[in-house]
C-alpha cells in the first residue's frame, strides 16, 4: 500500500500522451512552417476576435439558460422520495446517453423552414420562422445537449442540504422566498460552479452544434480550429495558436469560478 510503483505505467503514459501533446500545441503555436520562433500565429488569431466573442457570448447565454432552467428541477428532484428521485434522474440522464450527433440532428429536422415546428405554427397561420442556421438555433442546441450536465451537479449538492435546516429556517420566520435566498442558494453554490464549468467548457469549444444548427454562417472557435487541421485551409500553426487562445479563455473562466468556490476539491465531476 505504500508503494508508488504501480503508478509508474500511468506516469509514463501521462507524460507521453498528455504533457507532450500540449507541449506540441504550444510549440506549433509559436513556430512557423520552417520551425522559426514567431508570435505571428497568435497575432493572426486576433483577426478572428469577432468569432471568439461570438463563441463566448453564445456559450455564456446557453450556460445561464441552463442554470435558470435546471435550478428548480434539481431542487424538486432532490426533495422527492427515494424511488421517485431515481426514476427522475434516470429520465434526465437517458438523453445524455443517446448519441450527441443524433440529438443535434433531431433538432435540425424540427427547426427547418418546413420542419415540424414551423408546420405547427402554420396551423395557426403564423410563420414560417427562420429558426435554423441562426445563433438562436446554436444556443438552443447547446442548452439541449448540456442541460443534464447542469442538473446533475446541482442535484448532487442539493441532496446534501439537510431537510431540518430548511425547517429551522421556516421555524425562525423565513417564508419560501427567504428559505431559498438565505439557505438553499448559498448552500448550492458549489454545485452551481461545477455546473457552469461543465456546460460552458464544451459549449464554448463545440463545432458540431454550430455547424449543424448554425449553418456555415455562424462559425465558432471550434469550427475555426477544425478548419485549420482537417478543413480546407490547412494551417496547423494557426490552429495551434487558436487552441492555445481557447485554453487560456477557459482557464480564465475557471479561475473566476474558483474565486467563488471555497474548498470543494472532491471529484464533483462524478
Amino acid at each position, binding site marked *: 500500500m505504500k508503494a508508488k510503483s504501480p503508478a509508474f505505467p500511468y506516469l509514463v503514459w501521462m507524460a507521453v500522451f498528455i504533457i507532450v501533446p500540449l507541449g506540441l500545441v504550444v510549440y506549433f503555436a509559436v513556430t512557423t512552417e520552417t520551425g522559426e520562433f514567431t508570435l505571428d500565429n497568435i497575432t493572426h488569431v486576433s483577426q478572428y476576435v469577432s468569432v471568439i466573442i461570438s463563441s463566448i457570448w453564445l456559450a455564456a447565454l446557453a450556460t445561464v439558460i441552463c442554470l435558470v*432552467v435546471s435550478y428548480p428541477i434539481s431542487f424538486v428532484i432532490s426533495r422527492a422520495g427515494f424511488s421517485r428521485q431515481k426514476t427522475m434522474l434516470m429520465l434526465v440522464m437517458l438523453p445524455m446517453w443517446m448519441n450527441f450527433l443524433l440529438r443535434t440532428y433531431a433538432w435540425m429536422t424540427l427547426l427547418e423552414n418546413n420542419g415540424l415546428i414551423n408546420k405547427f405554427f402554420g396551423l395557426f397561420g403564423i410563420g414560417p420562422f427562420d429558426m435554423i442556421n441562426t445563433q438562436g438555433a446554436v444556443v438552443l442546441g447547446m442548452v439541449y445537449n448540456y442541460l443534464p450536465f447542469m442538473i446533475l451537479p446541482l442535484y448532487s449538492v442539493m441532496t446534501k442540504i439537510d431537510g431540518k435546516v430548511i425547517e429551522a429556517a421556516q421555524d425562525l420566520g423565513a417564508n419560501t422566498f427567504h428559505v431559498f435566498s438565505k439557505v438553499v442558494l448559498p448552500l448550492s453554490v458549489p454545485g452551481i460552479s461545477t455546473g457552469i464549468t461543465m456546460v460552458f467548457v464544451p459549449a464554448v469549444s463545440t463545432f458540431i452544434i454550430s455547424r449543424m444548427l448554425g449553418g456555415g454562417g455562424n462559425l465558432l472557435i471550434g469550427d475555426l480550429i477544425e478548419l485549420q487541421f482537417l478543413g480546407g485551409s490547412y494551417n496547423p500553426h494557426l490552429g495551434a495558436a487558436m487552441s492555445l487562445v481557447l485554453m487560456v479563455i477557459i482557464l480564465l473562466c475557471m479561475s473566476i469560478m474558483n474565486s467563488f468556490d471555497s474548498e470543494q476539491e472532491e471529484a464533483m465531476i462524478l
Partner: protein
Amino acid sequence: MKKAASRIYMLLVFLFLYAPIIVMMVFSFNESKSRTVFTGFTLDWYYKLFQNDVIISALGNTMLVAVIASIASTVIGTAAAIGIFAMNKRLRSFVLNVTYIPILNPEIVTGVSLMLLFGFIGLNLGLTTLVLAHITFCVPYVILNVMPKLRQMNISLYEAAQDLGCSPVRAFFKVVIPEIMPGIITGFLMAFTYSLDDFVVSYFTTGATSQTLPIAIYSMTRRKVSPQINALSTLIFIAVLLILLLMNIRDARAYKRASQNKKGDSL
C-alpha cells in the same frame, strides 16, 4: 398550488428533452423520406440499416475500441490510483492536476494535440491511434472513481489481513481490491461509456478506414440523406433505455434485500 406548478414545469422540461428523440423515432417508421409528413408505416429503414456495411463495420470498430480502451484504462488507472494514493501531498497534487487536464480541457484541444503527437512520432492515423487516444481520456475517469474508494477504505482491514498471516501482496489482492471494486467497476463503466460515445477526439485521431459509429453517423447527418439515421436513433434509444431499466431493477432488488436484512436484524 405549488405542487401543480412544479409538476407542470417538470413536464415541460422533460417534454423539451424528449420531443426531438420521439420525433426521430416516429419518423423512423415513415414510408417516405419526408421528415415532416408521415405517409405510412414501414420497417424498411431498419432493414436497410442492417444491410448498411458502413454502419455495421463502424459499429464493430466502436465496440472493439471501447472494449480494449476500457479494459486497458481500468488496469492502468487502478494501478495509478494505488500508486498516487501512496504519494506525498505535493507529488499527488501535481499528478492529479495533470490527470484532470483531459477532463477539463475542451475535447477539440485534446483531439488536436493528440493528432499533432501522432504526426510528430510518425504514427499513421488508424485503429491504433484511436485506441491510444481513447485510453488517454478514459484513464482519468478510472482514477477519479477509484481514489475516493481508497480514501474511504479502512486501512485496518489491510493490516488485519497481514496480522492473520497474509503477505502484503496477498493481503492487497484479498482485501484491498474487493473493497475498492465498486470504484473499479464504476470507472470501467464510465470509461466504456465515454469511449462508445466519443466523437470529437476520435474525429481527429482516426483514419479513413477505422471509422467509429459516431463518425459514421456524422457523415450520414452531413448528407441528410435517409431515415436510416432515425432507425439507428431508435435502436440506440431502446438499447440505452433497456440498460438503464436493468440497472434500476438490479438496484431496486439490492435495496429490497438490504432493507429486509435490516428488518431481520431487529428481530
